[in-house]
Structure formats: structure tokens, C-alpha cells
């Protein structure tokens, strides 16, 4: 029997809203006890002691939107390299997208991801299955069989299903199995060829651009289709105030939808693109400062349920291009927590609330056990100092790809240790890269 006692911790349990000094005891892969009074009188004699030194101890993060290159583009990222980045970022569960080659639209491929992850990855990995075959937006994927094989939800990743009739049927069919559908909101016609957000800055740079309406139109459409079908639906990412207003209005009408935002859209706006920095070309595009502020507000108010990294590793040759030709996407697993903590540091939300958007909230949406501190829960944990400042160095990232938006950025909030099932998978003191 292996026992680890975490002492002198700032316990953060977003599910109960608790933020207090205390201790936590792990036996094998589970939490067996925790609380403000634990080990107040005497230290445990038979356990390995981890002194948290007053740092935060929280449930490990669940990142609902991670793209990897496995299978098919292993030069960009494997499940193994992504999991090392995840561990360094305090992420203990990665939900991986089906946008691989081949596409995860076959039960055997769901099985492949699960077995491959079990054999190579240091954190938990759960795959989403494709909503349509080959992500082509034409024929529904085998939602029932994929679900049996272990697909946690269904999505076409960074593609929108343009055909409203097909989207309606997919939602209706998915609801037969109680399956969660995750939508990408970007009208493919309105945003065709667009490299950034439409507005004065795009006009000055002379870049092809798409309006925020390209997103909001799909958010509105999908909400109507959810009303029609009663499916479980989550919008992967919103990025502008208009979309937030539409989501808030739908929630007020009692429609059970949820939505996410990427840490990039909380921490950056379109002006950060500066002189055509292609590493800041992401999907959806970075928006105006007013929209960024609206996203922060949406997280603080709870209208936006989860924060994701939208980790999307790209090789240097597809990023070192002119802005129009460069690939979309930025890595984000290792910057998710510090970028999200900006909201806490600005005093717009409590630490427990911000952490909740990356733990309890995604766990609830996905139906996962993880994401909370509880007796008998899996010991997926992160120890981080929410205030410690550091400067991000892209060269020290653990991801195979280094296409971060944040090279040289000053952050507050540093991950020190990450545990998955009671096993330490990251320790900043022993980390040769960090």
C-alpha cells in the first residue's frame, strides 16, 4: 500500500467552493481523506510526506479541447508528448479531438487512442469521436458504436457542420443515446479564406477577415436545433460578446446548453497579432479588446462554463509562412492555467471559481468522476503557486511543437507538481526542461 500525505496546502475544491488551509491523504490511486483539520495534531507516520508549502492543491485540470497529431501527424505531437505538456501544465485529463489522420470515426480507432494513451501517455486521455464520417459534414458517424467503444462526446472538432438539416439529425440521433455533441461555431462560407477578425486592424493589415457574425450565426442556429431536438450540447468555444449574449439568453430560457472559451481569447486580442505574427493565428480568430473583456466577464458570471487550452500543435514549416498561408492553431496545454488565472489576478473571480472552469465544470458536462476533491475520488491533483511570477520561454515547452502565442509573456501562476491516480507525473524541481 502506498500512502502520500499532502501537508500545509491551500486546498481548492471548486465543487464545494472550499478554499482553505489543510491536508490531503492519498492511498494508492485514491483520495482517502482531506480537510482543514486533517493531521492537525500529528503528522502521519506511515506516509510519504509532500509539504505543499502553502501552495494551492486542487483537482487536476480537465482540458476539453486538445488536438494532437496521433495518429497521422506524429511530427506535430504524439499522445505521449502532449501528455508531458499536459502534466507540466497541471492537466490530468485531456479530451482529444477526432481531427487526426485517419479521423476517429471508427470504433477501432477509439480503441486505438485508448490503448495508445494507456501505453504511452502520463495523463488520462479520453477521445471524442467524429460526429460525421471523415469530418466531411455529410454522413453521420456511428455514434452508438463509437460510444460503446469509449468515445466521450461527438464533434467535428474545428469544423462546423454547414448543413442545418444534417446537424439537426445528428443532434436528434445523438440524443437517442444521451450522447454529448460538441459544436464548433464558425460559418464556413462567411469565414472562407479569412485569416483574422474583421475590423479596423484587419483593414490596416490588408488581411482577409471574417466578422464575429460568422460565429454568432452558428451559435444561434445550433441553439435553435437543440431546442428542436433536446440533445446534450456544448459549444466548444465562443469568442465574442454577441455569442455570449445569445448563450446567456438561451440559458435564461432554460435550454441546457454549455459553452467554453479558450485561454487565448481571455488573455489576448487581435492587436497582439502586431506585425503579422503567425503564431497568433488561431481559430476562432483573436477578437477586439471589447470582445476579450466580454469573455472574461462571461467566465466570471458563469455564463461561460469552461476554459480550454484549444491546444493545437503545428510544425514550424506550416507556421513560418505569411499570415494568410500559415496554419491555424497554437499550443496551450502548458499555458492554460497561468493564462486563465489572469481573471483571478484582476480580481474578477475567485481562485476556486477559475479553477472550477477547468475541473468540476468540464467533469459535470462530460460525466467524469474527476475534477473534485472527495473521499474515494481519483487522486488526480495539481499543486501550483497561483501568485508566482515567471516568463514563458517557448524553448522550454514540453510539447513537440513550440507554436505558442505567449513566448516571452509574463505570467503569474506556476505549476509545481502534478499527480495522476496518486502517481507523480510532473515535478518542477526535477524538470530538466522547465
Amino acid at each position, binding site marked *: 500500500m502506498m500512502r502520500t500525505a499532502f501537508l500545509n496546502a491551500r486546498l481548492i475544491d471548486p465543487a464545494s467552493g472550499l478554499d482553505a488551509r489543510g491536508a490531503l491523504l492519498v492511498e494508492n490511486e485514491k483520495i482517502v481523506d482531506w480537510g482543514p483539520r486533517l493531521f492537525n495534531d500529528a503528522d502521519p507516520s506511515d506516509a510519504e510526506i509532500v509539504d505543499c508549502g502553502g501552495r494551492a492543491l486542487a483537482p487536476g485540470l480537465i482540458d476539453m479541447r486538445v488536438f494532437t497529431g496521433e495518429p497521422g501527424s506524429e511530427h506535430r505531437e504524439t499522445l505521449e508528448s502532449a501528455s508531458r505538456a499536459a502534466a507540466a501544465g497541471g492537466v490530468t485529463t485531456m479530451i482529444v479531438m477526432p481531427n487526426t489522420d485517419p479521423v476517429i470515426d471508427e470504433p477501432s480507432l477509439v480503441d486505438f487512442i485508448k490503448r495508445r494513451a494507456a501505453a504511452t501517455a502520463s495523463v488520462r486521455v479520453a477521445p471524442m469521436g467524429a460526429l460525421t464520417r471523415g469530418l466531411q459534414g455529410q454522413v453521420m458517424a456511428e455514434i452508438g458504436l463509437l460510444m460503446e467503444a469509449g468515445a466521450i462526446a461527438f464533434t467535428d472538432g474545428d469544423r462546423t457542420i454547414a448543413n442545418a438539416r444534417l446537424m439537426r439529425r445528428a443532434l436528434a440521433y445523438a440524443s437517442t443515446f444521451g450522447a454529448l455533441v460538441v459544436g464548433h461555431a464558425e460559418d464556413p462560407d462567411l469565414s472562407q479564406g479569412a485569416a483574422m477578425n*474583421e*475590423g*479596423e486592424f*484587419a*483593414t*490596416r*493589415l*490588408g*488581411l*482577409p*477577415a471574417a*466578422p464575429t457574425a460568422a460565429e454568432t450565426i452558428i451559435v444561434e442556429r445550433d441553439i435553435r436545433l437543440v431546442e428542436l431536438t433536446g440533445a446534450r450540447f456544448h459549444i466548444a468555444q465562443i469568442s465574442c460578446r454577441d455569442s455570449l449574449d445569445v448563450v446567456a439568453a438561451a440559458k435564461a430560457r432554460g435550454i441546457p446548453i454549455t459553452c467554453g472559451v479558450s485561454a487565448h481569447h481571455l488573455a489576448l486580442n487581435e492587436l497582439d497579432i502586431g*506585425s*503579422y505574427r503567425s503564431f497568433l493565428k488561431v481559430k476562432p480568430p483573436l477578437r477586439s479588446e471589447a470582445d476579450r473583456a466580454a469573455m472574461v466577464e462571461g467566465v466570471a458570471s458563469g455564463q461561460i462554463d469552461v476554459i480550454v487550452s484549444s491546444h493545437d500543435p503545428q510544425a514550424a*514549416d506550416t507556421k*513560418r*509562412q*505569411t*499570415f*494568410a*498561408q500559415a496554419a491555424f492553431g497554437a499550443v496551450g496545454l502548458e499555458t492554460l492555467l497561468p493564462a486563465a488565472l489572469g481573471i483571478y489576478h484582476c480580481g474578477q473571480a475567485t481562485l476556486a471559481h477559475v479553477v472550477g472552469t477547468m475541473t468540476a465544470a468540464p467533469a459535470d458536462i462530460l460525466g467524469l468522476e474527476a475534477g473534485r476533491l472527495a473521499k474515494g475520488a481519483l487522486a488526480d491533483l495539481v499543486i501550483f503557486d497561483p501568485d508566482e511570477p515567471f516568463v514563458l520561454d517557448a524553448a522550454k515547452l514540453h510539447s513537440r511543437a513550440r507554436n505558442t502565442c505567449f513566448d516571452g509573456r509574463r505570467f503569474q501562476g506556476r505549476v509545481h507538481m502534478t499527480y495522476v491516480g496518486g502517481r507523480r507525473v510532473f515535478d518542477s524541481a526535477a524538470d530538466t526542461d522547465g
Partner: protein
Amino acid sequence: MQTRGDGPILLTRHLLGIESLSVGEIEGLLDLARDYAVLNRAVAKKQALLRGRTLINLFFEASTRTQSSFELAGKRLGADVLNMSVRTSSVSKGETLIDTATTLNAMRPDILVVRHQDSGAAELLARKLDCCVVNAGDGSHEHPTQALLDALTIRRRRGSLEGLIVAICGDILHSRVARSNIGLLTKLGARVRVVAPRTLLPPDVDRLGVEVFTDMNEGLDGADIVMMLRLQLERMTGAFVPSTREYFRFYGLDRAKLRRAKPGALVMHPGPMNRGVEIDSVIADDIEVSVIQEQVEMGVAIRMAVLDALARGLPQEGANAP
């Protein structure tokens, strides 16, 4: 040389756009070009200013007049000129632009003139190369030498740009000429109007300091200069405007519309023209109003001035010998 001294004119190593230039830099270039325009009409046009220097014309997009204009400018100043036309479609890109840049860098050019179909390409090259980079047009972003030659042409005819009303008409959305001209003309005190159907106006274009018109008659009212832009027929028809005949009816420059402008107003066009689409042949060929040929002539003078100004910042012989 017999023109203005050889003190610095540009504060930067590159000419990437009008946006980053000061009024002083622009006027320095225009003054220098005015002298080169005189020189270009002399019998002996050749100078030795750039002797031993290498100029590479790197054109990813087809161009007749800009490329030959830079070539002639380089040769008249005594440089060795290499023309490279690279045909790449965005789909069949093998080598990245940065790979191309690194390869060229190894050939040790002194000045690289680049045209590319993507906005920001010149800036990307400037960051990766050791030599001076001149932007000869990048996507829908900037075409600084075109704006400079337009300003030089106007200045020769009108003395100054201060207070002039300039109407830029046509495809503003995709036009780098429009963006560079808006920047330059407003810096030099002109009042700039843009005239186009809504589909060819960039969002928030009024934030660039221009007046926006969708009615060409109103837009030309009292204008001193009418600057026509080329309609890119291959991409436009059916997508941005329904047909060329409808476009010509509402946005083509003919006598009737030109009558709204000030008497003696000048007509300009960066070329190549679509006669009968954005401009009536009668206007284009009317030497009383059209300065289109003079624009081409000033183009060579401006490019000589730009090369001269950039060469002043290059390392001199013996200064940094290996």
C-alpha cells in the same frame, strides 16, 4: 552625383510601407526623385552610385511595370540587377517563404525588392534577411513606391498636396495602392475620399481618416485629383459586383462623372487599365486630364530615389571588411 547631398533620408533600413514613414522622410524621397526625374530626361542617364551593389527583384506575382521600373532604376544607378520570378500557388508551396529568404540571403544581395500575393510578406523577409528590403506590393497591404510616385506626379502638377481633394475610386477592399495612398496623402495634408460600392469597401475604412462615398458623383464633387483603381475582373465579377457593365455604369469614370470634379482635375490610374470597365478610353487617352503616362515616368525616378536612399545606409567599402 549632382543631386542633393548624400546625407541620410530614411531612418530605417527597409522601405516596407508608408505607414512607418515620417513626413520628413517622404519629402526627402520626393525631393530626391524630382532630381532623378530631370536626370532621366538627359541623354546620359547612367550613374555609378550603386556600382558593385546587387539588387534582386523577387516577384512572386506577375508584374510588368513595377518590375521593369525597379530594374531600370537599379541599372541606371549602376547596380547589378537579378530578376527572379517565382510562380507559387498557395496550394503547391514546397519551400516556405522563409526558406526562399534564407537561400537568397546566402547570395549576399544588398537590396531585395519583393512583390508577394500575401500581406506581410515583405515584413517577414525583412526580419529574416540581412539586406535592405523594398516592398513592391504585398497582398492587400501596401505598395509604397506606387503611392510615392503618385505623390510626386501630383506635386509636379500642383506644387503641393496640402488641401487637395483626392478621390480614390474602385476596389478599395483589395487594393494595396489605396492603403498606401491613403496613408501618404493624408500625411501630406490632402483630403482623401474613397468611392466604391459597399462590397468593395473594407470594414471600418473611415477609421483610416478618409471620407467614404458610395455615390461616385458625390464622391467626385469638387475633387482636384481622381485616382482610379483597377478592378480585378477575374476575382470580382459575380462575387463583388454583378457585371462589368453595371460597374461601369455606376463606378466607371466617364466624361459625365468627371464633370463633377473641379475643372482641370487630374485623372490617375496605377495600371494596368481595364478600358470600359473602370475608365472610359476617351478619358484615359485625354492628355488634358490624364497623367497616367507621367505616373509611369515618375515611377522610375521614385525607385531610383528609394534605392539611393537605402544605399546610403549600406556598409561602405572598407568599413566592415571581413
